[in-house]
């Protein structure tokens, strides 16, 4: 299955909907798309992975790279994922401590906005 990446604006966040398989072959497509978005000034990303069937270490590396990139612009990257087999990949590698992972896009947007507000007032 090919990888599909689409993005839209929602409540001041850029929601990146990813579906298909993110692996050593397809991950560069996701990397390019994330780089384009950050380069175009989209620094608060919500990556919706509910349609992702498979994720490997190359894909994880791309997400970590995206996180570093948005953070260098004081941005954020939240993930949406409830699929056990994808969550397992984050757990094995300890990346559940690195990425905020939410059940729904709405929750991710709310958490992202709340963190932003807390930063603004601190």
């Amino acid at each position, binding site marked *: 299955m090919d990888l599909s990446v689409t993005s839209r604006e929602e409540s001041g966040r850029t929601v990146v909907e990813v579906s298909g398989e993110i692996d050593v072959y397809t991950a560069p497509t996701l990397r390019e798309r994330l780089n384009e978005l950050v380069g175009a000034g989209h620094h608060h990303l919500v990556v919706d992975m509910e349609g992702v069937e*498979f994720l490997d*270490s190359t894909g994880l590396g791309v997400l970590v790279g995206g996180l570093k990139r948005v953070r260098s612009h004081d941005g954020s990257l939240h993930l949406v994922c409830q699929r056990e087999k994808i969550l397992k990949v984050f757990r094995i590698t300890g990346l559940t401590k690195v990425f905020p992972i939410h059940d729904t896009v709405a929750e991710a947007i709310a958490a992202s906005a709340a963190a932003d507000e807390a930063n603004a007032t601190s």
Partner: protein
Amino acid sequence: MPTVDLRFTPLPEHVRTARLVAVSVARRAGFGEEQLDEIRIAIGEACARAVSATEAATGRAGLVDMRLSDDEDRLDVTVLRCDEDGAPLAETPPTATTEDPLSLALMTGAAGSSSPATAPGGVRLTWVRETAAAGVDQQV
């Protein structure tokens, strides 16, 4: 004798094919969905690592050789880096993929009860099929 032997040119696009073949053999051997997920992850990493190392050593001339054999309740998978004649390459240069700690963590972490063992020119992964009784235990 391996049940299934798949040899492919070291290109990233073939890793998915290798995952599909491995999971298909494991499913046929009676492995459940949870273990199939582990097999899919670990084989994906093992093959991505072999593709990267073989490509670094031989360009596109070499081959990655994945051998699967199922016996009773276990599945043995050996993933080898090979030269153009199919002979295992004992030494290959390190690459970004083979040095990636996330890749090693996933391959090791998903290998289930057994840790990956080093085979000459590659890696060997083994899974023992969980019995129905073990499945019941997990639900408690």
